[in-house]
Structure formats: C-alpha cells, structure tokens
C-alpha cells in the first residue's frame, strides 16, 4: 500500500467535525476571512485570478475544467454574474452536502473572492432545494457575513462592494447542469440550453456573461489565496493538483467523505486503508465499482490500482467525475444495479431531446424486464443498439447527439454491465428471474 502522507493539509474539510463548525465565531477563530481581507486589500483582481490559474485547480463539479482558465474566458461586459453550483444530485455524491452544512462560510468567502477576481455584479449561491438544513446554514452565514462587513457596501474598506443571494432549487437533477441551473435561477423549467452559443461565460444568467463554479471549487479559493497557487500545485501529480474530497459509498466498512491528496493513492488504498474505507464489508471481494458518479463507466477489480487522478482514470476509460465512488461486492446483482441507474436517468431526463427521452425509457423497460425474468437473449443487442443511438460508437468520452451530457451518460452503466457481466444477464434470462433474490 502506498503510504499516506501525514503532512498533506486539509484544505476544504479542516473545520468539519468542529463544534458549531458553521458559525462565524468558529470560522473566524480558525483563520476565516483572512484570505478575503488579503485579496481585497493587498491584491488586484488579476493577481487573485493568476494565483488560481497557477494552482491549476480543476473544477470539482464533474467536468474537471480548470477554474482559472474558465475565469479567463469570461466575456467582458458591464454586467456579469457569478453563480455557485450547490445542486449536488449526482447519485452517491454527498461531499457538497457536507461542505454546505458543515462549512458554509468557507463557500461564502470563496464566492466573494471569486466575485472580486472576475468582477461579478452580483453573486448567487444555488443550493439544492432538498438541503433544508444546508439552506438555513448558508443563509445564516450570508447574514453573518453582511454583519461582519464581508458583504454589502465597501467590504473591509477596500472600495469593493457585493451582494450575495442564496437561491433554492426545487428538486430536479438536471438543474445541476450549468445552463439548466441558470434557467432555473431565471424562474423557468430547468431545460438545458444548447452550447454553443449558450456558454455561460458568454451568454449566461439574464443573457449576461456568467461564471458557474461548484461549491467544492469555491471552498478551495480561500486556501489558495492564503498559501499561493504554487503551494496548491505542489500537491498532487501532473494536472491533478491539490486535494479532493472523495465520497465513498456502497459496500465498504466506513462509507464517508475523505479529503485526500490528488493522484497520490489508488482506489484500493482509499477502500482498504483503515483511516478511510476500512475494507469491504464482511470481508467480501470487489465485484465492480463506479469511479465518478453514475454517469461514469464502471471498473472491475483490476481498476483498483488506478491512482485517484483525473487523467489516469480518463485514460482507463472512465472519469473521476463528481468525486463519488461506489463499491459493489461479489453478492451484488449487476443487472439490478444498472437497471436502477437507468431508472434514475429516465426519471430525470428533461425530455427536450428524443434520444435521451425515448432512449432512457426503452432502456429502463428492457433492463427491468431482464431483472424481473421476462428478458430475451436478443435484448442484450437491443440494449446496446439503443445505447448506440444515444451515444453513437459507444466510445469514451461519449459522442453527443443531445443538448446536454445527461443523455450520453445513460449508456455508461448499461454498457459496462453488459460488457463485464454478460453471463449474469444470461442467467437472469435463462432462469427467468434474479438469482440474487
């Protein structure tokens, strides 16, 4: 096992577990708002942006785009916006939920610094509607920040002013997609917009250039300002810099959120280490795992030795995506697991694009039929064909025939399950039901 360095700082989870970790008193007692003061009173906006560029912080929302590079692409315009994405609904991803409830001030501080760096006219934090406690905590943090002088007119006497507004979602996975989120924030149905032309950095909220960044991305900003982009970039390997929270779930002894240095350990280290996953439940073996949210293709046990790095996982044919890892042991029915994921996509497809809307429905029905014992052998080819209609060629990353990438994400689990566990599908079909029940 690779040794886990003791010296890696906790960048985004340092306050998690502290008493009243969400209060401004705790936040100030642990170095809170020092970075904001430093940025506003001693740095130019372009200097802040340049530190973030140097850090090579990759967006933590799923796509893994460089945060600094995104900022540099913001179209110049007298009105521009910053929207922070706290919609976290990718199945089995629960890291943002923890940050939102546990350290809302860190998100608020990162947001204000970012608004300064990109010159946002107003900033919004979009929080998933189901996070009732999270909404309370973030609003309380915003109230406290105004009282402390970190928001509103002339922040810390720097001449920089900003208003920050909390906005609740209302239950729709698709609203995590940035253009759908913008539609929702405009008070509409969450229909994604087509890119181009609707890249938020060019045409975003109310038609104005807009930066959309994830909650965990924002949480890294205060540390980067305090310690410098180079210090951040010295952690990790290659393009995967800094630390990252992995939300480990499924059949492990210790499911939970673990912040680790990027690329320095493998999936196996994370799963087996006593301080992290603590090994597989009941000492069972790994049958398969999902490395980056249900939109990601699965790996078998041989994937366990891949390092937790964005590029290594991509090279192996999947993605680190949302930072969720789901472990499945040898007692798991793969048909049922893949079927449930398809059911999710079918339910959450916004319905604008035919391949996604119809395809997800057909695939879900076929998968359900196989799981329940009514499947035919020809269904397997039919399933692959339906998947191919959504993402032609079934390559990775998938080809896109739809407005957003929800559609092309549907085949990931189905194709992986059929490729890796064809026998198991055949047993369901031959025996007329699920052998695991």
């Amino acid at each position, binding site marked *: 096992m690779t040794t886990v360095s003791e010296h890696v700082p906790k960048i985004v989870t340092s306050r998690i577990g502290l008493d009243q970790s969400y209060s401004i008193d705790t936040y100030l007692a642990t170095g809170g708002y020092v970075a904001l003061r430093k940025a506003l009173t001693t740095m130019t906006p372009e200097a802040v942006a340049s530190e973030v560029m140097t850090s090579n912080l990759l967006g933590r929302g799923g796509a893994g785009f460089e945060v600094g590079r995104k900022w540099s692409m913001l179209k110049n315009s007298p009105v521009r916006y910053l929207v922070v994405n706290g919609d976290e609904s990718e199945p089995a*991803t629960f890291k943002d939920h923890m940050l939102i409830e546990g350290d809302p001030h860190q998100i608020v501080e990162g947001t204000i610094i970012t608004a300064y760096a990109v010159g946002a006219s107003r900033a919004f934090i979009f929080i998933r509607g189901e996070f009732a406690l999270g909404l309370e905590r973030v609003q309380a943090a915003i109230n406290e920040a105004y009282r402390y002088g970190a928001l509103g007119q002339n922040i810390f006497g720097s001449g920089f002013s900003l208003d920050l507004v909390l906005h609740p979602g209302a239950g729709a996975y698709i609203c995590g997609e940035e253009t759908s989120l913008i539609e929702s924030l405009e008070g509409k149905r969450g229909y994604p917009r087509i890119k181009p032309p609707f890249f938020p950095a060019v045409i975003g909220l109310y038609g104005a250039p807009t930066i959309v960044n994830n909650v965990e991305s924002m949480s890294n900003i205060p540390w980067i300002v305090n310690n410098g982009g180079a210090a951040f970039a010295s952690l990790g390997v290659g393009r995967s810099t800094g630390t990252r929270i992995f939300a480990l779930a499924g059949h492990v002894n210790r499911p939970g959120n673990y912040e680790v240095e990027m690329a320095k350990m493998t999936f196996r280290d994370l799963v087996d280490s006593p301080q992290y996953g603590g090994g597989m439940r009941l000492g069972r073996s790994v049958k398969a795992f999902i490395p980056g949210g249900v939109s990601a293709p699965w790996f078998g046990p041989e994937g366990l030795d891949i390092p937790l790095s964005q590029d290594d996982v991509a090279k192996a044919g999947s993605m680190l995506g949302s930072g969720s890892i789901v472990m499945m042991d040898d007692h798991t029915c793969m048909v049922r697991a893949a079927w449930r994921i398809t059911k999710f996509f079918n339910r959450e497809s916004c319905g604008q694009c035919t391949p996604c809307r119809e395809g997800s429905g057909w695939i879900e029905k076929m998968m359900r039929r196989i799981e329940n014992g009514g499947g035919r052998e020809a269904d397997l080819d039919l399933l692959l064909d339906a998947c191919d209609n959504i993402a032609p060629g079934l390559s990775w990353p998938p080809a896109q025939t739809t407005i957003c990438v929800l559609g092309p994400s549907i085949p990931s689990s189905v194709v992986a399950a059929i490729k890796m566990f064809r026998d198991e599908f055949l047993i369901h079909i031959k025996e007329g039901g699920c052998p695991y029940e």
Partner: protein
Amino acid sequence: MSGFSQIMRRRAESLVELYPERRSALIPLCHLAQEEAGYLSEDMMRDIADLVGVTPAEVYGTASFYDMLHTEPVGKYLVGVCTNIACLLQGGGELLEHAEEKLGVSPGGTTHDGVFTLEEVECVAHCDKAPAVQVNYRFFGPLTDETFDELIDDLSVGKYEGDVPSHGTLIRVHREVGIEVPMEEIVAQRRESDAAIASRKAALEAAKESK
C-alpha cells in the same frame, strides 16, 4: 382557500427584490406558498404570478417541472425513501417495500388521516448513511425496518415537531438584509475597476516592449 397572508406576502416581496429580474423569485415563492398552504394551490399560483409578473399558467408550467413542488395537497409529512444506487446496495429497495406496508400506501399515496405521503426518491446525498429517508427534507439513516417504524410512530405522536418542521424548505431561511448595492452603482464601480485593470495591463505591455 386563499393566497398569501400579509406576513408571507411581505416575505415574498422582499425575495422578489433580491433579483435583477422578478421572475427569478418564482421558485422561492413556490416554496413559501407550500410553507403557508401545504401545497401549491391555485390561489397561491395566482398570487405568485402577480408578484413575479407572469401568468398563473406559467407558474403552473414551471412548477410542474420540479419534484418538490406539489400542485395537489400532500400529507403533513413527506416521507421519501431513497432507492438510488448507494441505498439500493444497502437495502433501500426492501426498505421502500416495508414503508409501503407500514403506511399502507404506494409511493405517491397519502395515508387516510392525511399525515403521511410516501415517495420513492432519488439520491438525497445522505449515502454514507444508507439506506436513507427524508421527512420534509430532514434526513435520517441508516434505517432498518424497525427504526423506520419507530420514526413513523414518533412522527405520529408529534415527537419531532422541533426537528422536522412542516412544509417549506425555506421555513427557517430568513435573509436579514435586502440588496445593499443597487445595480447601477455596482455597474459604475465595476467599470472603474475594469478601466484600472486595462491600464495596468497596458502599462505591463509597454514595459515589456521598451525592454
């Protein structure tokens, strides 16, 4: 049936003022309406339409996109059992079956006394405590059949009144201040700062060239 009360209307108006365009307040206002009426009644939708400057049909059309917005009455407690992947692996499917038995309704159904509405929900980001259940968007887990029953029984006798507030995800979300910097003022400030950035850039370029 009626729309917003005086107090709620004031809260609604203060939310509308937070946005550069009124329509942005549509969803927050739907949450307020559910807090007051338990669901999105027609009167509420009419009031919301009025407040954000759209037609009631547009409010309905928007609201119907979202799982949390209910245009029909629901129980006092919305009980959502998650059966998505992490919960499925830990028995979420079986827990949902048990919940149906315990409450005597299928997902989408409301108990006769109007206390519980059962829902099968997608991941609620509580997966390290799988199988997870949400009650009015407060999270519980990991639950067994027995602890699920206890939870329901406790809710029935009002044991969770403080921890599980009634409808409205914004029920305890109160913004203390309005918008402090009007848009025109911000735009003027940003123009100034953009000009400063541009002149710093020009100076840098000039310095480079003279070398």
